[in-house]
Every structure is written in structure tokens, then in C-alpha cells.
């Protein structure tokens, strides 16, 4: 636990800073309906840096930053103009054009200077896990300055005021500066999540900017905490785990918003049938699939069997069960044998006697054989299961259909009319 805290608290602080500024820009971006503008600005900044690198400037130098900034300002200039064209062409289309052209131009430049590839990758794929004090020292003053600038110019920069070209330019230019630094720290995917998802939740629940910001910041902080914790606990790449956590948070916010508009009875009355219909669709779909193609993949059955291996007993004969378990045991044994040989070879590189080429080849050959044998056992498992499903397709499918019918709201009551289970009154039959 202490390890996790020691490792994650600085990335968490960086995430808070990024959420702080991006939620604000996100609300503006949603109001302007230019959702992917951050991708276009980050890509064009990367193009500028790649050009600088190709011209011989050092990757971290002032000249490279100047090129990057100049390209971003150029993009801001173009974006400020495109607002005026949006009557005829959606602004998102032009943003998409800027993105793909900048990306393609960067590839063309890299083709001429391959050593720039890693530099370009670093601009666009940050890793929030490896951020530290030096990053905070750069972004905190920068984001504060831009935040203050926007607060001072808030009346001019509001999305509704967009007729003035100059203020549009100031908005996109300052946003470009923010995005350029944040993408290098956290990567394109995570910055997009910071930008859109907390802002979307804020806009969903509040009408005024301060309330939207407050909600966005709280939701962003919670989602970041959940993402970082999940990333540590489940051994997942941090950026991707955080993006999924933000997505889950937005989905949850959508459900909460929907529930908030209705009474508890109404909500229950809608959710329960909806969930039941989901189960019906899943069961009926799986039933049809198993009856039509018993040898195909069956995600529902496979998931149930992965969690409860005993469930196979429902449709396996005793002989099939024995063969399946036998194959499973041997597959595991071959895996272990191959792994042991591998470990022996790996250890021998630095410890003890060096293995000669002949022994290494023999080990490789053994590992190949074990792997093929394991593959054979896996084939046996698949084949036994497929044959058992083929044999019992109607029973399995029928069983699932019965469950689907039982779960479907209102079906049972229609099939079995109300009162049919009641005892007949004496003499009623007459």
C-alpha cells in the first residue's frame, strides 16, 4: 500500500493540475462544438517540433519549442477563421483535416529523418506515471497564467461571443499552449479524457460555469483516483486504466442523471424491466447461436464455465469430463516443463556453466515440442467441449430459452393466466 502511495501521489497531483485547466477548456470546447480540437493542436505542435528536430535543433531546445509554438499559433489562426465557415462546412471536419494533414506531414518528415520518430512519439505519448516535480514546476505556473488570462478576458472569450476573430485566436492559441504541454506529459488519449469527460459531467448537472467547473473537478479527481488505484491493483497500464475509469464515471453520471429526473418507484419500474430484457436478449441470442452453430465460440457459456468449471457437468458425460480434465492436466504440465527449460537457459547466461549452442538448440527443440504438445491438449479440450455442445445443442439451447422466457417481463403471466393456480371453488367445475 505504501509502495502504491509513494509511486502514485505525484502522478495524482499532475492529474489534478491537468483536470483543473482541461475541465475549463472542455466546457468551452463543448460549447463551441469542436470536440477533437485538442488532437489537431497537439499533432500540429508535434509537426513543428519534428521540423525543428529535422533542421538540426536539439529535441529539448528553445528553438524546437519555438517551432512547436509557431505551428500551434498557425493552427490557432486557421481555427479562428474556420468558425466563420462553419455555416457551410462543420468546423469538426476542418479540425479533422488539420489533424490528418499534420499527422501525415510528420510521417513524411520522419521518413527523411528517422531519428525524429522517437521524438515525435514522445511528444504524443506521454506517460503520467513517470511525471514528477520538474513537470509540476512547469505546468503549475503556465496553467495559472493561462487561467488568470481567461478569467480576466472571460466576457470576451465566452463561446457565444465568437464573432470576433481576435478572441477566437486568443482562445485557440492559449488552448494550444496548454495541450502541447499536457499531451507530452499524459498522452493524447488521457488528455482527451481530461478535456471532455469531467466537462461533460459538469454540463450535464449544472448550468453555470462555476458549478460546472466544481462538478467537473470533483468527478475528475474521483475518476483519477479510481483509475490510478485500479492500475496499481490490477497491474494495468496507467493511462489506459485512467481513460476507462473516466469513461465509466461518465456512464455512471448518465445513469444518475436519468434516475434523478424520476421518482424511486418510476426508476425501479423502468430499470428492472430493462435489465430483464437485457438478460432475455443475451440468453435468447446464446440459445439460438448454440443451436445453430454449436462449434462456434459461445461467449456466455465460455464465461460461465471459466468462473464455474463445474457447470460443464450439465452437458458433459463422465467420459468427456475425464478426457477434458486429463487434457487440462497435461497442458499445464507441458507449460511448466517448457517454462523450467526456459528458466534454466536464461539462468545459464550469467550464472554457472554456459550452455553450448548444441544444448541451447536442444532446449529450443524441447520447448517447441512441449508447446506443440500443449497445443494438442488444448485442441483436445476444445474438441471435447465442441462435441459435447453439438450433442446437447437442443437441450442447452432449450434450457437457455426457458430461462429467457422465465426472465422476460410479462411473458409468464401471459402464458399462465392469472388465477389458474388458484384452487377451484367447491363445485365450481360443475
Amino acid at each position: 500500500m505504501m509502495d502504491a502511495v509513494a509511486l502514485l501521489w505525484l502522478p495524482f497531483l499532475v492529474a489534478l493540475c491537468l483536470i483543473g485547466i482541461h475541465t475549463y477548456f472542455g466546457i468551452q470546447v463543448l460549447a463551441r462544438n469542436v470536440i477533437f480540437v485538442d488532437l489537431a493542436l497537439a499533432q500540429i505542435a508535434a509537426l513543428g517540433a519534428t521540423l525543428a528536430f529535422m533542421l538540426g535543433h536539439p529535441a529539448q531546445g528553445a528553438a524546437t519549442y519555438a517551432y512547436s509554438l509557431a505551428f500551434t499559433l498557425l493552427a490557432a489562426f486557421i481555427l479562428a477563421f474556420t468558425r466563420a465557415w462553419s455555416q457551410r462546412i462543420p468546423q469538426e471536419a476542418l479540425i479533422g483535416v488539420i489533424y490528418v494533414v499534420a499527422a501525415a506531414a510528420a510521417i513524411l518528415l520522419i521518413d527523411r529523418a528517422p531519428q525524429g520518430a522517437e521524438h515525435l512519439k514522445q511528444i504524443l505519448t506521454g506517460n503520467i506515471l513517470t511525471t514528477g516535480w520538474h513537470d509540476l514546476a512547469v505546468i503549475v505556473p503556465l496553467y495559472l497564467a493561462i487561467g488568470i488570462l481567461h478569467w480576466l478576458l472571460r466576457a470576451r472569450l465566452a463561446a457565444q461571443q465568437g464573432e470576433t476573430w481576435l478572441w477566437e485566436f486568443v482562445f485557440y492559441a492559449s488552448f494550444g499552449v496548454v495541450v502541447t504541454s499536457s499531451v507530452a506529459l499524459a498522452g493524447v488519449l488521457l488528455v482527451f479524457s481530461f478535456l471532455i469527460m469531467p466537462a461533460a459531467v459538469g454540463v450535464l448537472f449544472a448550468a453555470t460555469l462555476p458549478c460546472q467547473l466544481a462538478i467537473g473537478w470533483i468527478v475528475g479527481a474521483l475518476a483519477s483516483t479510481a483509475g490510478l488505484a485500479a492500475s496499481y491493483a490490477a497491474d494495468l497500464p496507467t493511462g489506459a486504466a485512467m481513460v476507462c475509469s473516466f469513461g465509466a464515471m461518465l456512464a455512471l453520471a448518465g445513469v444518475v442523471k436519468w434516475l434523478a429526473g424520476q421518482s424511486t418507484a418510476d426508476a425501479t419500474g423502468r430499470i428492472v424491466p430493462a435489465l430483464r430484457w437485457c438478460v432475455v436478449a443475451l440468453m435468447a441470442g446464446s440459445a439460438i447461436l448454440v443451436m445453430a452453430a454449436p462449434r462456434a465460440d459461445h461467449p456466455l457459456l465460455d464465461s460461465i464455465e471459466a468462473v464455474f468449471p463445474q457447470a460443464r457437468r450439465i452437458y458433459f458425460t463422465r467420459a468427456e469430463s475425464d478426457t477434458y480434465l486429463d487434457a487440462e492436466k497435461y497442458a499445464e504440465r507441458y507449460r511448466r516443463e517448457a517454462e523450467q527449460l526456459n528458466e534454466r537457459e536464461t539462468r545459464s547466461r550469467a550464472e554457472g556453466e554456459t550452455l553450448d549452442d548444441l544444448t541451447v538448440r536442444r532446449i529450443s527443440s524441447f520447448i517447441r515440442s512441449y508447446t506443440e504438445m500443449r497445443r494438442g491438449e488444448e485442441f483436445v479440450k476444445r474438441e471435447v467441449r465442441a462435441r459435447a455442445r453439438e450433442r446437447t445443442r437442443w437441450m442447452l439451447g432449450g434450457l437457455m430459452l426457458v430461462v429467457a422466457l422465465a426472465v422476460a417481463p410479462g411473458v409468464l403471466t401471459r402464458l399462465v393466466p392469472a388465477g389458474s393456480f388458484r384452487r377451484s371453488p367447491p363445485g365450481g367445475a360443475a
Partner: protein
Amino acid sequence: MSASGWATARASGAPCLRGMHRHEQGAGARGAPCLRAAYCAPGVLAILLAFAASAVAQEKLRILTTTTDLKSLAEAVGGDRVEVMSLVPPNLDPEEYQAKPQDVVRLKDARVVVRVGLDFDLWLDRLLTQATLTHADVRNLRRGGPGHVDASQAIAVLDQRGIAVGPSDGHAHASGNPHYWLDPKNAEIITGNILETLARIDPANGAYYEANRLAFLARLEAALADWSTALASLQGVPIVAYHNSWAYLARRFRLNFIGFIEQKPGVAASPARLAELIRIMGERKVPIIVRQPHEPDRAAAFLADKTGAAVVVLAGSVGALPAAQDYLSLFASNVAALSAALKAVPTR
């Protein structure tokens, strides 16, 4: 495409170019008497002789390799009677190479193609198939063809795990670790594979190629002794690397790579993995983290910051660093970098 056009087509590949220009100058010197005669003769004769000079230049056997390492080794065997070009320029990841239209033209003009194999340069098969559609002769360069050299033939392959069982076993290469050129001893097998094909395609120069190869291997053997001495102090010293590219180097020089930052290709390390690495590096007092120039530096720098280890950038291929200009200097520069890093690290 003319001979010079073939040689200069990849202007961006600086290290390969130097070699090519040298060969061109050699060809020009042999063609010089013909040219002098052409200057004195009437115009028609001049044109004919110019064609003859061009033919002399084209006599060089054209070899295409997928990587710069194989290019360097093919040059060592072929000497000045071959013209070698690497399809992938230095410092570009050969596994992610995207072929270009000009590559088809280069294949058309080549008589031998040398590949890494072991699923490292699979894109070559698609390129060869594509080139065969327009240039029938290219079929000689396809797998099984007389001009196709799979340099991995007869290599003792390491890290042969998880094949055929699925991606969950964590190895991207079904046929084992493909970075086998990083064991200098494997140059014997690689150059042997190249020699076999060159001698079959161009039997007149077979003895010349064989002599070249033996001379190169003698130089390599002498250098190997020096490198082994220089790296003796690193034996058993625990090292962490960004990617598992160094299995063959480790086996040859008894280097102890105890962990890798990137466990699955292209997937960033998780916090749990980094925490585990920090713990292991602290416990085992790891002094060095190794990464290649094209690999991300942030994770390595982060670990170095947390543990006090030094990050050493090693060339995984010829041309990846300015000091690694050919196969011998690739090892010389890496050995120098590792030795310097170990000396710079305070006694732990």
C-alpha cells in the same frame, strides 16, 4: 534505374551511403580507361563506351538487406564486388517498417535479399509478393528462391517461449527472440548463410567472398577477445533493460539482465510493475538501466531517478547511434558505453 540511382536512392541512410560511394568510386576507377578512350573517339563510340562503363559498374552484385546489421555483414562478405542496401534506414524500428513504392524498384534490381527472419521482418514477404506482380524475376528472391537468404538459419534461438499457445503468453515473436545479431559469435552463422547464397549466385567470385568472410571473422575474433576482457567486470552485475533485446549479448558476455521495463511490446509498464522493479533494483543494487535510442526514455529516467542507477543508451543495430557505424563498431561502442557506465557508478 541506373547503378548510381540505386546507390543514392536512400540519401537519408548516411552510414550506408558512405560505403556505397566507396564502391562506386572503385567501379569508376576500373571503368576509367574506357572513359578516356570515349573522350577521344567520335560521338557514337563515346556513347557505346559510356554504356560499357555503365555495364562494368552494374556488374556489382546487388544485395538488399532488411536491416543495417545485415547490410554491414553482407558488405563484409561481398567486399567491393557487391553493392548492398538496407531497406530499413538506420534508427528506424525494422519491425514497424512501412514499405515504399521505391522498395519494389530496389527489389527488381537486386539479385539477393537477406532478411533477419524469426518473424522480425514479416513485411518483406508482402513486399516481395507485391513486387512479383510487376516484376516476375523477383520470385527468385521469395522464400525458397535462389536469391533469398534467411540469416537466422542454424542460429541457436533463445527465449523460445509461448509459441502457438496464444498472445497471453506474453511473447510477440512466435519463433523466439529475433535479436540474434547482437551475439558477435552469431556473425559466423549469418555470414555463412550469406556466403552460401553469394557463392551459388556468383560462383566466379566464390573464393573471393570466402576469403573476405574469413578475414572478417578473424578481425571479429580478435575484437571479441578485447570486448570480453572489457566486459569481464560486468559479469554477474544485475542490469535492467527497457526491452528484451539483449538475450544474445547477455549470453555471450555473461551479462545478468534481471528485468525488463516493457514486458509486453508496445504496452507501457504498470505502476505495480514499476514498484516491483524499484524494489528489486534496490535489493539487488542494480547500477545500470539499458535502453535503445528509439525506446521511450521517460520510464528508464524515472527508475534511474528513484534508484540512483545510470541509464545507458546502447545501439541495438548498426547506425542506431553515431558511433555504431558498422557491425564491429556496434559492439565496440556498446562495450565502451557499458564499461564507462559501470566505472561512473559509485561503488554500491
